[in-house]
Structures are given as structure tokens and as C-alpha cells.
């Protein structure tokens, strides 16, 4: 069990530190930092955490000592939660440090301090924070004909657990798939259009699942998509056509730098199906130029930064990105509403677009 592994590693670390102290030496913790040197990028795998250099947290230096005490304290709180079957958010973890006896030492100035400590604990233990009880509020749903067995052993069907589907839990590792009755999963950035597709009955009719990302995909959602991908389910990604959405799509496919040290968050088999620049220029939306939105200054800045992100370096992403810099425009998934005077028409357009795209990018007909 992962829980046992966390406990084992944490106690090993504690013993090592205690032993050094017994010998009258200042304790140290060695760990691989998530610096650029230790992170590789491979188009077929995504970000790879490959430690070449190691850092030391030294108990003989004031600054370092704070970190060392902080890591130990953080681990002790995490183990306490684990043993009692309790989880905590990053905010909880911050408050765990806001205690009287830590004034003048580990009492944090703001949450960034304890957030950084969580990443450090991940690097030291080599495990994601979810394994040591620090989870995020769940974000992301999956709707479709997928039968799964959750952590408690219940069998659930992801199109029979509410109108948004199954809410992906913080630790999807514990989920087992019993039966997968869909041809593909379409991961959609925005809640509105995704809900429309569900409300129009498209998943049932077309044998697809809809994954609702709600913005940047959460770590648990990315892990869950990877699990589906590992089961052989084709994953399609549908986002806005914007500089931010490029990153959202690329993060699902390759993982991100910030969480590069956490494995199995990338789904390299997933395909970015839209909205693409060619859809706007010559494809599905070519007659709807008038429904495009102008880029905001923040959007433009994001597009400029995109030129240098390691996971956006191949020709496809850069070509897509150049379009923003040139046209200074973006398209949102809501453009379907601008094209459809009636609900019936909307359904036709959704289906037509998905059929065309899934066929083109994944070779799947629906």
C-alpha cells in the first residue's frame, strides 16, 4: 500500500536524522531538486524527472535548519493524518503551522511558505502529496458509460451518478475499471459547453465520455485520464483557441514543469483536437470570423511566453501560437452558440464537429 510506503520512507528519514544527532553531527537531508537541470522533456513521454544533481538541507545553517525542521514537522503532521484516515488541503497544511508554539520559528508568513515545503516533501519522499494526505479540493468530472470500482469498493457508472457525472477523487489510483463502454473520452476545458453536450444526450448516443476539466486540468484529473489512456481509451482534448488553452492541452499531454517530479500525470497518447487555427481559418468555423474575441494584454503576454515553454517547442504548437501573435484574436468553445439558432442545430453542430475531429485525429468514427 502507498500509505505504508510513505510511512516507511518518512520514518527512515527520521531515524537517519536522529542517528546523526546521536553521533553529535549536524543532520542533513539530501534530495533531488526540481530544477531545470533535473527535468528532461521528451515529445513521446512528456516531462521526465531525471535527477542528476542533488541538494542538501543542512542542519548547521540557520536558513537550512528551518527547512529541515519544517520538513520533519510537516511529515509528522502528514503521518498523523494518514494514520487517522484524514486528509488536508494546502490551506489546512498552512494552518497546521499557525500554532502558538511555532511562533518565531515555523509560523508561516503566508501560504507560499508551506506550499513550497509540500513540494520539497514530495521531492524528498519521491511521492506525490496526495500520498501523504495533502489533497486538493476535487475538480473535474467524467460522464459516460464507464463502470468503475471506487476506493470503498462500490461499483459506480459514470453516467448514473449525477448530471455532471463522476467527480474524480483526489487519489484516483485506488479506482479500478470494471467495464469501459465508450469509444473515446473527450476532455473539455469549459463546463458550459461540456454540460450542453451531456444535456443533449451526445455521450449516450455517440458512445463517448465527456471529461470536464474546468480550466487547467487538476492533478487528479490528469492522473485519471492517464489511467484511462493506459486502459487503451483514446483521449481527445477540446479547448478554446487561446494562448492559455494551448497550455491546458499541452499539460494534459506532457504534464507541467511544476509537477514534473510527479510521474503518471502525462497522457502522451492524448490528442489535441481543437479548437485549432485551421478550424477558424479554413475549417469548421471559417464563416464565423465575426464571433472571434480580441486578445487581452494578458492573453498576448501568455502567447509571447509560450514561445519559450519547453513543452510547446515542436512545430505544431509554435505554429498555433504564432497565429495569436499575428491575428491577436481567440476563439472560445462557446462559438457553437453563435452558430446555432436552436438547440437542435447546436446538437447537430457538436456531433458534426466531434465526428470530423475524432476521425481526423484518432481515427475513430462516432
Amino acid at each position, binding site marked *: 500500500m502507498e500509505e505504508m510506503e510513505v510511512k516507511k520512507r518518512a520514518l527512515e528519514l527520521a531515524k537517519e536524522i536522529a542517528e546523526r544527532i546521536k553521533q553529535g553531527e549536524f543532520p542533513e537531508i539530501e534530495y533531488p531538486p526540481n530544477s531545470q537541470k533535473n527535468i528532461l522533456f521528451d515529445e513521446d513521454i512528456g516531462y521526465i524527472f531525471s535527477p542528476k544533481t542533488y541538494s542538501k538541507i543542512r542542519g548547521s545553517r540557520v536558513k537550512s*535548519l528551518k527547512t529541515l525542521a519544517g520538513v520533519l514537522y510537516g511529515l509528522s503532521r502528514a503521518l498523523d493524518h494518514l494514520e487517522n484516515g484524514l486528509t488536508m488541503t494546502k490551506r489546512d497544511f498552512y494552518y497546521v503551522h499557525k500554532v502558538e508554539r511555532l511562533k518565531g*520559528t515555523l509560523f508561516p508568513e503566508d501560504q507560499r511558505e508551506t506550499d513550497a515545503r509540500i513540494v520539497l516533501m514530495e521531492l524528498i519522499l519521491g511521492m506525490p502529496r496526495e500520498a501523504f494526505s495533502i489533497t486538493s479540493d476535487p475538480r473535474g468530472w467524467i460522464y459516460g458509460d464507464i463502470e468503475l470500482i471506487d476506493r470503498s469498493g462500490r461499483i459506480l457508472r459514470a453516467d448514473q451518478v449525477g448530471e455532471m457525472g463522476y467527480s474524480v477523487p483526489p487519489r484516483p489510483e485506488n479506482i479500478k475499471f470494471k467495464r469501459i463502454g465508450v469509444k473515446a473520452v473527450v476532455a473539455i476545458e469549459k463546463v458550459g459547453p461540456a454540460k450542453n453536450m451531456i444535456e443533449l444526450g451526445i455521450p449516450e448516443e455517440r458512445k463517448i465520455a465527456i471529461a470536464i476539466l474546468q480550466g487547467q486540468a487538476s492533478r487528479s484529473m490528469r492522473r485519471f485520464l492517464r489511467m484511462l489512456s493506459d486502459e487503451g481509451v483514446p483521449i481527445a482534448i477540446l479547448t478554446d483557441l487561446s494562448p492559455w488553452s494551448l497550455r491546458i492541452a499541452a499539460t494534459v499531454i506532457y504534464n507541467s514543469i511544476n509537477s514534473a517530479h510527479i510521474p503518471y500525470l502525462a497522457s502522451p497518447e492524448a490528442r489535441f483536437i481543437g479548437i485549432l487555427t485551421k478550424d477558424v481559418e479554413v475549417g469548421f468555423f471559417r464563416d464565423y470570423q465575426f464571433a472571434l474575441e480580441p486578445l487581452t494584454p494578458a492573453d498576448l503576454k501568455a502567447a509571447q511566453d509560450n514561445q519559450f515553454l519547453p513543452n510547446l517547442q515542436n512545430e505544431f504548437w509554435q505554429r498555433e501560437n504564432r497565429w495569436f501573435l499575428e491575428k491577436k484574436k481567440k476563439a472560445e468553445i462557446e462559438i457553437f452558440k453563435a452558430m446555432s439558432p436552436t438547440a437542435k442545430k447546436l446538437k447537430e453542430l457538436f456531433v458534426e464537429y466531434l465526428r470530423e475531429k475524432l476521425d481526423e485525429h484518432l481515427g475513430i468514427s462516432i
Partner: protein
Amino acid sequence: MSEDVRLEEISAADFFYRNKSLAGFDNPVRATYTIVRELVENALDAAEMAENPPKIQVVMAGYKERDMGSLPWYRIVVADNGIGLGPDEIPRAFGRVFVSSKYRLIQSRGTFGLGGTMALLYGQITTNMPFKVTSAKKGEPVYEITMMIDIQKNEPVVLDRRVLKGISRASFTVVESYFEGNYPRAKRKIIDYLHQTAIVVPYADITFMDPEGNFYVFPRSTDRLPPRPKEALYHPKGVDLELLQRLLQATKARTLKSFLTRHFQRVGGKTASEVLKIAGLPPDKKPSKLTKEEIERLFRALKSYDKFLPPDPSVLSPLGADLFESGIKKELRPEFVKAVQRPPSVYEAHPFIVETAIAYGGQIRPTGEIQLYRYANRIPLLYDVSSDVSYQIIKRIDWSNYGIKSPEDEPIVFFVHIVSTKVPFKTVGKEFIANVPEVAKEIELGLRNCARDLRIFLSRKRRKEMLRRRYELFRMYYQIIAETLEELLGERPPVENLLDKLRVKVGDEDGGDGGQEESP
């Protein structure tokens, strides 16, 4: 003799009466402070003249409540263990303004007797009550003399004279007087004055019982008095035309040449002849026979002659760095004090010595303003601090070079003491020192000298403090580590061993190891 005649015509006492502000009596508050100050200065001078460690007792009490027409009246009694005065000296010493003209040069707090007499005169003017002086020399009878001053005639009027005791074992003087004033508003200044005096006269015991019943004690920290100043002749470049005239009138010398060698320092026969040659005056001319025009020629010759040696500084009596520090320590209880005595220097033919000191920390508190104690010939200067040259110098110095971010906000007090035969006051009020380049230079050098020691002290102190803080952080963090490990492993590791290792480092002030560590 025309000068003397003029003095007779307008009595000096009368003159003072009409020009009260010149002497610091311009309002009842200031007058209350000035009376205490003048009588205390007199008492200190008397004691120092006797070469006794001064013991000064001041008692001030309400005498008459405030009523429709007047402010309250007070009775002041000041007692000293000074030289004491005989029955004939008392009326002369206290009963006339401008009691003596002295054709000699010596550093003193003021002109002897003058300030004290004016204080008594003020009392007489405001209350029309006589004052009383009780005094004795050692082994002589104690006389008590009750008297007033005849303002028009500038003469003492003895009202009563009695012998209190056949033989006095010690010399002393007690002055008792009544005046109209305002103690509540003068209180702050009077206490400041006594406190600052106690610093610059650390060998004096001063007590003060005030009209509110508070008893202030400023005990001495040492019995050692600074050496008495020597008397000396005037330096030829240090006299003005009027003084030269008066010297020519009063001299017993029969020729100009002997006049010059007898009344001036740094003038021998050869120098005298050279000066007289420049002036175009015969060496054997009788001094009192000089015409006004000849006096001016002599004066200009003295001014233009450039081969006089600089004036003799032995007339000056600085406090000395040790005594200065002793006084500062006892009154302010600082953590650090450094006093410096600069070598003698000269401005406009007046010798002077600057003494500076800096005190830091301990019981000193920052006030948000520059704390500067100024002294001239051992008298504290309490007014117009921001106009003083020392204040301007302190403002100008970049204190960050000496480890002080801003002197206003740190527990630092500056001291500047100038001793001179002629203190370069800027105004007749004698409350602040003018920006004379020679004097300013010495003040700045003195302050910087003290500041260098302060910088060393502060950097040691801050380094110690840093190491102590660092040790404290280590202690706290290892406390957390020990508790956490105990919680995880069920056993508390002996973190004290590590802390002991650090303590060795902290104790070792010059140890290089600590410096390599990151500071918190």
C-alpha cells in the same frame, strides 16, 4: 578717564535693570532658571577656588502665593563649601554690579560675582526684599549680613550685620534671597541644568529641594578636581582697542616697551621693539601719555605683527577625558561612553580646547531628536541648540559610517565642551556657539574620534547579538526537531550535544566559523 565717568553716570545696576534680557531675566520663567543657575555657578566657582570638591545645596520654597497683581514669590537658599568671605568682602562681592575689572586672563565660568549679584538684584527689584549672605573663612567668625543694592548709586546698603558664631571649622557661604518667578514652568530647565552640570562637574555633590517638595540628589562620582587654570597675561592679538586703552591707563610701567613686555605674553624686549617700530612710537614714551591716535597705531601694529607665538593654553582648564566620562557615566548610565580632549588651538588669538564625548545605550532612550549636551567653560548651554555649531556639525556627519542609522532614533547622546578665555558665543544671550572655522574643525575631529570608538563597540555588540540570536534560533529549531523525532520514533535525540557545540562558537568572539554561516 572718560570711560569711567560714563560708568558712574549710568549706574551699572541701573543699566542692568533696563536691559534685563541681556542677562537672561527677560521673563519670570527664564529669570527663575537664571537665578538658580547664577547662584549655583557662583557657588561652584567659590568651591573650586578653595580646591574643595564642591558641595552645593539649593533649597527653593514658595514664600507668597500668586495673587491678583503678581506671580508667586519664592525663597532661594544656596549653600557652598567654597572659600568663604570676610565681613568686609561680602558687601563688595554681592552689593555692586561690575564688581571688579581684572587686568588678567583666566578661564572662569563668568566674571566673578557678576551673575550672582544680578540674580540677587532681580530678587530685590521684584520683591523689594533684602537678601542675606552668611559666610566664614576657615577658623574665622561666621558673619550674617542682610543687605540691599542701591540701584542708582550701584552701592551695597548693609541693613544688618551680626556674628553668628565665634569660630567656623570650615569655610562656607550661604546666600538667601526672595524673588518673583514661575517655578512650575522653569522646573524642566532647572532640572536639566543641574543634571547637565552634574555631568561636567562630576566632582561636585549637588542637592536641590524644589518648591514642590521634590528632593534631587546629584552625587559626585569622584573626589578628583581638574587642575586649576593658571593665570596668564593677555596675548597681544587677543585684546581689543578698549581693553588696550584701559591697560595703558592702569599700568604702572613707565615706558611703552616695558608696558608691552609686562602686560602681554609672548612679548620680549626684541619683539616689543619691533612692534613699536611698526607703530612708529618711541619705546620710552610714557604709556598714559599716548593720544587716541597713537593708541590706535599701537593697536594696529599689534594686529599686523605676525611673529608672536600662539597664546599659552595653560590658562585653560579642560575637564579631561576621564572626568568627563565619569560624569556621563554617573548621570546617564550608558552602555558605552568615550570622551576625547583635543589639543589646544587658537582662534583670533584666543586659546581654546574642545572636549567631546559620545554616550550610547544603557539607560539612554532615543527621543526622536538629536540629543546634544553643550558646555562652555563647564556651564551647560540649554537654549537654541539647533543654532549651535555643534548641532550643525552632527547634522552634517554621515553617521551610517559609524554604525548609526540616524542619531535621532537611537540611544545616543553627544557632548561638546569648549573651554576658552573667550568662548565664541554667537549672541549676547550666550546660549550657543558661533560657527568659527577653527572651533568647528576641532569639534568635528573630536566627535569623529569618539565615533570611531563607538563604531568598534557597536560592531562588536552587534556581532555578539547576531551570534546570540543565531544560537537562540538553533535552540528553538532543534527543540522542534527533537519533539518531532520523539513523536515519530518514541525517543528524543540528544540535540543538546549539538547546541553545546554551537555555544562554544558563540562564546568565541573572534571565531571565524560563525561568520561563514548564513545570517538569519
